[in-house]
Structures are given as C-alpha cells and as structure tokens.
C-alpha cells in the first residue's frame, strides 16, 4: 500500500515539474497569447488598445503572480479561458477528450494486434523467408512519418478508391484511416521488443525441456514463451503512450478530426497558454497513471515477481520494477544479428 502511495507521490511530483517546465518554456518564448490574438495585423489595434486588453485579462501582472494564479486555478479545477477564443478550457477539453480517447484506445489495440502478429510470425512463422520479411516490418514501420502515412492512406483509400470519405464520414468510417495511421508507428517498437524477448526466452533451457516433453509450437509459444516475453513489451506499451499523444496531434490535424491533438496543434500555433497547460496536465496524468498501472501489473503477470504472503509487499514490488527495467534493457539493447 505504501508503495502505491509513494508512486502517487512521485506522480504528483512529475506533474508539478511538467507543469512548471511547460509554463516557463512558454513564457520564455518571444510574444504571448495576447500578441497572437490581438496584435495580429488583421485587427489593426493600437499598442494602447492592446495594453488595455492585456490589463483586462490580467496578462500584465508579473510572471510569478500569473503562475501562482494558474496553479491555484488548477487546484480549484478551474482551467481558465482560452486566450485565443475565449472559450472555457474545460469545455474545449471536454469536447475534445472523448474522440481522442476512442482514437487512442483503438489505435493502441490495433497496434498491439499488429505488433503481436508481426512478432509471432517473425519468430515462429513457417518458412525462413516469411520470418525474415516480418522481421523487416518493424524497421520499415518505425521509419514512416505519421503525417505521411495519413496523407498516403487518404490519397489511396479515400480520394482514389473512394472506399471511405474523409469529409462527411459516419463515426465508424471516420475512425478507420486515423486508427491505422496511429497504429503503424506504435506497432513497430512493440513488435521489435516482443521479438527480441521471444528470441531471448527461446534460448533458455526450460524451453528445450518443454519441447522435449512433447509440447507443440503453439503450446510452447502461448503458454511458455509469450508469457515470459510479455513484461518488456508491457513496459514498452506504457511508454508508447507518449507516442500516442504525439501521433494524435498529427493524425487529428491531417484527418481534420476534433480532439486533444488538434486542440494542441492550434493552441501551439496561437500560443494559447491556458489550453496548452491543461493539455500538459491531462496528458501527464494519463501518462503517469498508465505507467503506474503497468508497474502494478508486473507481479500479477509474473510469478517470479511475487513473493508469498502480503507482508513482504513492499520489497518484492520494488524488485519487480528493477527486474522489469533489466528485462526491458536487455530487450532493447542490440545483441548482434538475430537472424
């Protein structure tokens, strides 16, 4: 229990640091949201008029005061107003979050499916050429930029073949291409890590023993190898959530989808600090939570990371994290030509 509390403490620290860093970096850039919104030549306002608006919105106060005020606001659950549009940030986030969540969950789901398929075929697939081909898929996938994949998918499947409309699609149609776009770059590292750890697990003596006792390939794969190879992949999946956020920015912009990603892209372009800070907080919370869940899952998945009884909870859990880190490291470090 105290382990969980400690992890939550760490999470809050991470959140505070991310918030402060984002705040300082945004403040350090030349120009601010008032500049972006009201000093734009489209409006033709004089410096005095802009200054009056700056004062009305409280942007003339010292940075420290603004920073503390924004923290106080967040603690009260008040995310403030977008400088660019004046809309309540909580409304913007609430409107954007569901569609991004659906996109992210489906994207991650497809990525896991793709990753597992590629990894299993690349390691246990029938025929040397098939295995080799699939081993080459992750490097290919990882080198495709998300926006490029999106544009090419649109060009081929929507504009050329006309299978799914980009504009005026029903909710299901509207998800197909974006989910594929998002899944491709995430599937690649998953498959890579999974393949590496399968390769490693296969070398271990127990595999030979199980095989000698007459286990079929699929029994071996599903019951023995996969379970052991899963941990580093799970860690990777947690970390890939970051990629998912980045991917959503690009995917939503290319596909003109509403969501956190598009909101972020627009807020960055307009230097909309309140919106950006809210996005930073939301994604940091999600990132930290997902990685916390992943860490807590280790003992559930791997008997070696459990010790008998509840009294020794703290010690073994710590070693669980360390053990997972070792596994992950081992999986990621190159160990010569796998083929």
């Amino acid at each position: 229990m105290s382990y969980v509390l400690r992890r939550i403490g760490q999470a809050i620290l991470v959140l505070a640091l991310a918030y402060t860093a984002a705040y300082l970096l945004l403040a350090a850039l030349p120009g601010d949201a008032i500049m972006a919104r009201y000093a734009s030549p489209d409006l033709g306002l004089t410096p005095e008029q802009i200054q009056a608006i700056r004062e009305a919105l409280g942007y003339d106060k010292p940075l420290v005061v603004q920073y503390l005020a924004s923290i106080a606001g967040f603690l009260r659950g008040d995310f403030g107003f977008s400088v660019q549009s004046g809309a309540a940030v909580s409304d913007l986030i609430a409107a954007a979050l569901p569609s991004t969540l659906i996109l992210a969950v489906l994207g991650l789901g497809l990525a896991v499916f793709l990753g597992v398929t590629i990894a299993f075929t690349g390691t246990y697939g029938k025929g040397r050429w098939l295995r080799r081909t699939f081993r080459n898929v992750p490097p290919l996938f990882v080198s495709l930029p998300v926006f490029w994949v999106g544009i090419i998918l649109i060009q081929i499947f929507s504009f050329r073949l006309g299978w799914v409309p980009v504009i005026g699609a029903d909710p299901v149609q509207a998800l197909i291409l974006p989910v594929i776009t998002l899944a491709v770059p995430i599937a690649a590292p998953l498959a890579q890590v999974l393949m590496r750890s399968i390769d490693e697990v296969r070398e271990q003596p127990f595999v030979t023993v199980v095989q000698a006792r007459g286990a079929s390939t699929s029994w071996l794969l599903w019951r023995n190898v996969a379970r052991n190879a899963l941990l580093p992949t799970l860690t990777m999946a947690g970390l890939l959530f970051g990629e998912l956020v980045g991917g959503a920015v690009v995917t939503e912009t290319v596909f003109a989808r509403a969501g956190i990603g598009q909101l972020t892209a627009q807020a960055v372009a307009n230097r909309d600090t309140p919106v950006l800070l809210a996005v930073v907080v939301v994604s940091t919370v999600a990132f930290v939570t997902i990685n916390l869940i992943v860490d807590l899952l280790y003992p559930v998945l791997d008997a070696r990371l459990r010790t008998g009884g509840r009294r020794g909870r703290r010690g073994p859990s710590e070693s669980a994290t360390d053990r997972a880190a070792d596994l992950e490291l081992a999986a990621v470090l190159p160990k010569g030509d796998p083929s």
Partner: protein
Amino acid sequence: MSRITRAALAAASTAAAVALIAGCSAADPSTSPTDASGEPQTGGTLTYLEPQTWNTLYPPSAGFYPNGGIVNNITDRLLYQNPDTLELEPWIATEYTVNDDATEYTFTLRTDVTYSDGSVLDAENVVKNIDLFGQGDPDRALPVSEAINNYDHGEVTGDDTVTFYFTAPSPGFAQAVSTINSGLLSDETLDRTGEQFGPGNATDIIGSGPFVVADEEIGTQTSLTAREDYDWAPPSLEHQGAAYLDGIDYIVAGEDSVRVGTVVAGQADIARQIEAPDEAQFAASGLSLYAASTNGVNNGLSFRFNDDRLSDIRVRQALIAGIDRQQIVDTLFTENYPLATGALATTALGYIDTSEYYTYDPDKAASLLEEAGWTLNAAGIREKDGTTLSLTFNEALPQPRSKEVVTLIQEQLAKLGVEVSIYAGDQAAQTAASLDQDQIQVYHSMVGRADFDVLKSQYFSHNRNTLLNLDTASDTVRDEELDTLLAAVASEPTTAEREAASAAAQQYLAENAYILPIFEEPQVFGLTDKVQGFSTESVGRPSFYSTWLVG
C-alpha cells in the same frame, strides 16, 4: 544487421515509391454536371473547407478569414458594397446622408427586418451595434473596429433614423458600415463578453443574415441553415428572398493536400486557400478556381527606414532594383497573382500606377550600393565602416508562400552582396519581433479592405505601422510628412479629395523607396462545377446567399 537494414531500406523505398505513384495520380475527375448554367435550384447543403478554425464571431474581429467566412453569411450590414464596382448601395439602410465635413452620418432604416431570435432590428439596436463597434469595450475584451475612425457616439433621431457623430472627419465610415466588421447583431448578442463570442457559443450569435448557425462542433465543424423568412437582401441583387441553399457545413481541414484532394475527389464542394502549386489540380474538368481580389494594399515589403543601413535612400533603391519580382511571381505563383504596379491593387479605390519606381536592374543596384559606400568584403558581403549589409526579413505566416518569397529574394540579393536572413518563429513571435527594427528591418505583409483608408491602415504610425514610422520605444514619428499625407486619406471629406490624398501618399511612398509591392494577393477558392453563383464580398470572404447546387 546490415543485410536487414538494406532489405528494409529497399522495402521502404519500394513501398514509398508505389504509394507516391498511387497518391499522385489524381482521382478521376468527376463527370461534368449537366445543366450547369440553368435556373438556380433550391436545396442542398454545401460543404465548405476552411484551413483554420474560427476564433470569434465578434464582427470587428472578422477580418480573420475563418471568422469572416461565417460572419459574412449570418449578418446584414447598413450598406452593401458591390464587390465588382466597390460602390455603396442600400441594404438595411435605405438611404444615408453625410454632412460636408463628414462628421455626421444619418441613416434611414428598413422597418421589416428581424433577427433570427425574433427581436426587431430597429434604430436603438443599430445605435447599440455601432456604439460598441466604434468604441469597443476593453473590460469585455471587445476591441474597437479598425474600420471606424474618430467615432464619438450614435443617436436615435427618428422612428427609423439614426445619426452618428464623429470628433473629426470620418469619410471612411459609410464603407466601414458595409464591411463584415460592422455586421449587425441582436441586442442580447451585443451584451456578450469577448469570451462569449468564442467557440462553443456560435449558436447564440444572433444576426439578421440569410443564414443562422444551427450547430457547432468546436474546432472542426460549424453548420449554418438558411432562414426561410429572410426577405431583406440588398435591393440591387437579382436574387431576393431566402437563400437557395438549405445550409452550409464549414469544415476545418488544415492539411493542404487533404483540402485540395477532398474537393478534387468530389467529397466537398468548395475549399478556401488553394496554394499556387495546387492550382493545376483544378484544371481538370468538373473543377474550377475562383480567385477573389482583396482590393487593398498589395503583398509587398516595407523597408524600415529608421534602421541605420536603410536610412540611406540609395540602399533602399538598390534593394528594389536588386529584387526580380517577375521571377518571384513566375516561379512561385500563378496568373491569379498579378505583378503589383503600385502600393495598391489595381482594383482598389484610389489606385495609381507607380511601377516605374520598381524596375529590376541589378547593375543599377550594384552601382547605387557602391555610391552609398557599401563595398564588397572578402566574404563577398557588402560592408561599410565595419557594419555588414545583412538584413532580417519576417516570415508573413498568413500570406501565401512568404518563406519561399523571402528565400528567393535572399538568393537574388546575395548576388549583390546583401545578406538576407529570415526570422523564424510562430505568429506570436513574428508579431513581437516585427515591432522592433533591430530584429526585423524588412517587413513582408499585405492588408485587404475596399476603402481609401486601407493605405493609412497599413502605413500610418498609429495603425499597422509597418514601416515603423512610429518608433515605439521613444513614441516619436520619424517622417511627419508621410503621416500627414496618410492622415489626409482618412480625413478629407469628399471622394475627389480622398482620391487626391491617396495618390499623393502613394507617390510619396514610391519616390522615397519606402516599399516594394510584389504582387496583388488574391483569395483562391477551388470548387466543383456543382457549385453555381458563388461570390465573395469586397475583400474575398465567401457569400453564399446566391449560391446554389446543381441537382
């Protein structure tokens, strides 16, 4: 490892090539619609693609195209400016009078106009509108309208007449009340704060226009429906009564290739901002381009003459002679971007031809620089008294291909030994830097507005101040004469006098080599042949009132 890498690379490049070939060969052009020029048909919802989301529906801020595209269709104005002739015609006001020194305007209003919430558009309401637009309200973060100058107050002077008073002559006011910046709103809407005009509130912004906001998905889509009881279109229009369309869906598609491809594939009807390189795709049958003139100050460069290096007129003249504008237009743009012949677009009010000042002559440029004492140093860059002639240009993010334009200029001026660098940064950073002549010495920009005042808007010390004639640090005006000339454009009471004032100011800008106009900037729309009767207001915002869709 190396074998795998090689194999992967090969696979990747093959896949890329295949995908590119597949992606690049354009979709089959949709078959040409029949009966394209027949009688207007009613019904149908038009899909309009915007590169950006709108950020407010407060009319004085409607200069931003995504905002203006909606405001223009949900509001009416006191007067109607014919986009072809730029003449002012009756609309909500049946007539207007102005006193001799243009300090009092009286409008007579129609009495049958209602807002979409049922409230009446009457004299009190009109005064409330113009008072807000002419004075602004900083406490509610509602800025004053750029188009309204010297505003004092408005009064109801009869059942259906209103009079507006000005502290100084304001000859541009009649045109100002015809622009989208003066779109009339219901009393309740006028009580909203700046925030309440933002996204999430679109359905509560009530105008009297032919369309009404019916639905809004923040950041992606805004849907308008036609008002069936609309019956107060400008009398000079052929079309009267309700709009032909049932509605319009404004959809945001930021990615250029997606916006273009969607219209080319027939999934949407119109897209705004077709970049010059994409124009060729609309040459296919069933598609067309609509290039709307913006009738204002041309896309061009302002030389900040207070900078030590640019304070010498010979240096400015050398830059002008050293930049090959024809090459810029030919390599980066299309025939929809005509070479500029003066500060203003040829269709703008008050335009005069000053093209003789802007001829390309690199030899003359080199000798001017020599004369001014700028000699080539060992690195091939001009130098004088230890300072090098290296200038920073901004990147005009809202303008088409600004970065490419400046890059080409960089190449052209490098031949003369002038070093050009581009200020990189987002809009807020560009805006901040452009106020400081130590950071930006040459400012790339344009402004569209169909009135004489546009010249003043761009160059006057207390408007956009693109020349930094007003030194913001010391709050002093460097060239008083320029300011006097520009001020006259916006304060002479009669059209003939304003015309003369505008011509004098343009001549002064040209003679002093303060600016280099590059091209007349259009708003380019790409549309399918299904769309008929599409037009724009005087600065290129779409008007859908008379637009109809073929069957």
